């Protein structure tokens, strides 16, 4: 029975074991300052994984997030001078609309989210390529510092990026566990038919979930764009798979209704620890990807809670 009780904490235990393992092999990994920095650097990835959590929580997936982020880096760079800090609204609005469109295609047109979001991603990519004129753009440095310079400062040693991530996590957690919307998400994820029979506006909820994932993708894209002070149609490449992996490793299975944003926090941290362990432990460059895959299998095998999975598909 004790193992049963520990199950929810498996992701945390996995994380702790990994950190200690890497720390034991290379103690400089445990240096608090560099750990804080390590965590601060993955903030855009974490935000994207947060958004992905909403899509996966209702049993779907959002493969458009990376392209939404790409589009947003271009939008932010192009319109920063014109709109200043209000370009954020434009970016977030774009993410929301694209996400909502994915959701609409999935729920109302019965296109599986795997394909619907992939296709919406292509559309966003077209937009990014068109708007950027197929060039890498750089931000006007003055406008960037004036509008978003605060994002990358420090307060008492805590990077502001972490503060933003913390606030978004709190917001996402609050949405998930304290609001009618979050409850509805859970109902849709665990038992969509029962949610319909309880009179929930299931379609709207699903569309909103995808819109939220789009919104978070946009926030991630915006932060990344400001961080790199530029944008182009490929800038955010490489986020997507990692974000999915982070959510899954955290223990939110693709079947929906289980897990949540806190799991995603752990999942992201696990992924990042594995990734930086490659650097710290000086893993041979050609071996890295293979080892990443193997550790991933082990990590997922350890973290997922199989008790609610009747059939494993």
């Amino acid at each position, binding site marked *: 029975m004790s193992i049963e009780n520990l199950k929810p904490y498996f992701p945390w235990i996995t994380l702790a074991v990994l950190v200690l393992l890497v720390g034991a092999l290379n103690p400089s990994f445990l240096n608090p300052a560099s750990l804080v920095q390590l965590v601060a650097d993955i903030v855009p990835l974490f935000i994207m994984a947060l958004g992905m959590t909403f899509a996966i929580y*209702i*049993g*779907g997936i959002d*493969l458009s997030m990376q392209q939404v982020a790409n589009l947003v880096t271009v939008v932010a760079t192009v319109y920063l001078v014109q709109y200043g800090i209000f370009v954020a609204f434009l970016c977030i609005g774009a993410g929301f609309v694209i996400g909502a469109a994915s959701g609409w*295609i*999935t*729920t109302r*047109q*019965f*296109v*599986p*989210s*795997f*394909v*619907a979001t*992939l*296709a*919406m*991603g*292509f*559309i966003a*990519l*077209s*937009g990014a*390529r*068109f708007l950027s004129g*197929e060039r890498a753009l750089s931000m006007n440095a003055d406008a960037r510092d004036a509008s978003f310079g605060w994002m990358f400062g420090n307060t008492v040693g805590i990077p502001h990026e972490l503060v933003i991530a913390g606030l978004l996590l709190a917001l996402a957690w609050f949405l998930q566990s304290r609001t009618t919307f979050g409850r509805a998400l859970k109902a849709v994820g665990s038992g*969509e*038919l029962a949610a*319909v029979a309880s009179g929930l506006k*299931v379609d709207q909820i699903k569309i909103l979930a995808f819109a939220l994932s789009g919104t978070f993708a946009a926030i991630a894209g915006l932060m990344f764009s400001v961080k790199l002070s530029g944008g182009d149609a490929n800038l955010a490449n490489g986020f997507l*798979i990692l974000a*999915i*992996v982070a959510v*899954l490793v955290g223990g939110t*299975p*693709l*079947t*929906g209704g289980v897990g949540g944003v806190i799991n995603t926090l752990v999942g992201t941290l696990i992924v990042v620890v594995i990734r930086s362990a490659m650097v710290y432990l000086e893993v041979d460059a*050609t*071996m*890295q*990807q*293979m*080892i*990443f*895959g*193997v550790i*991933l*299998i082990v990590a*997922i*095998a350890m973290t*997922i809670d*199989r008790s609610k*999975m*009747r*059939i*494993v*598909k």
Partner: protein
Amino acid sequence: MATIQTADKAGTWVGIGRETLVKWAPLLVLIVLCGFFAAIEPRFLSTRNFARILIAASPALMVATGVTFVIIMGSIDLSMEGTVSVCAVSFAFCFLWLGGTLASWAWLALPFAMLVGAALGFVNGLIHVKLKIPSFMASLAMGFVGTGLAMVMTGGDRIRIEDELFRSLLTERVLGFPLMVYVAGVFLLIAWFIQTRTTLGRNFYAVGGGEDLAIASGLNVSRVRVLGYTVAGVFFAVGALLAVGRIGIAETATGNDFMFLSVTAVVVGGTALWGGIGGVWNTLVGVLIVFVIGNGMVVIGLPGYVQDGVLGILVILAVILSTDRKSISFVK
């Protein structure tokens, strides 16, 4: 081959039901697309161009056929990029080591590559079934391992396969189509045979239609699953061989882009991601739709930056048209 049977029953075009229409929708979409591109650019409609489309589509068709079996079981296999790369590279090494021409013992490299594919698929299936990891995650991670393995094997180098006999896959033409198209066709028939005439093929449908019911009927579902992934691995290997035959190069990047491409093609063809419905003919149509769109957009001269978006829109439309909306209550 459920689709054909229904067609026979429908007989004439009079009184064709909604069900029949939905079943044939992917093919209709394909025909409409061809007609559309041909109307804008008549040169689209030529044997030579169809040969080009088929050359491009053959490797992807094999990969998509492999994953079709897994999707029919209601699972998914995302390991194809890694598996294709490893198979391509293993083939190339083995081929060169054994003499470098099909006229020697080096032909053994062909079955060897398929064996490697089967082995990778087998391991993939074992990890999924024995460790009880959902297939999405298990196969995604296995994909990383595969790509990584190909990298370790090549150290990042490309291996050229110059053998004229092997390259006749591309260069020899019969009736205007290169040999690789026929090879793909033969393997498609084998896949169809597996799907309709073997116990294993039918068991895929049983697992996809109702796994717990299949277990209760005494079916060894774990075995079917593992075998499904193994068969998929073999088809990935065939895809890898055709990919090498097409370009003459085996490398870690040989498997790139197959993942989203093949799953999209399968869904566009009308095979449902939740399992039990569809088959290899659907996949053929789906792959052709995707490649006709890709070829057609260049042929009619759409600007590059629009092409991604148009592909996205057309894929969504194709899936919408080929989905029986009345038969499903919700989709995730």
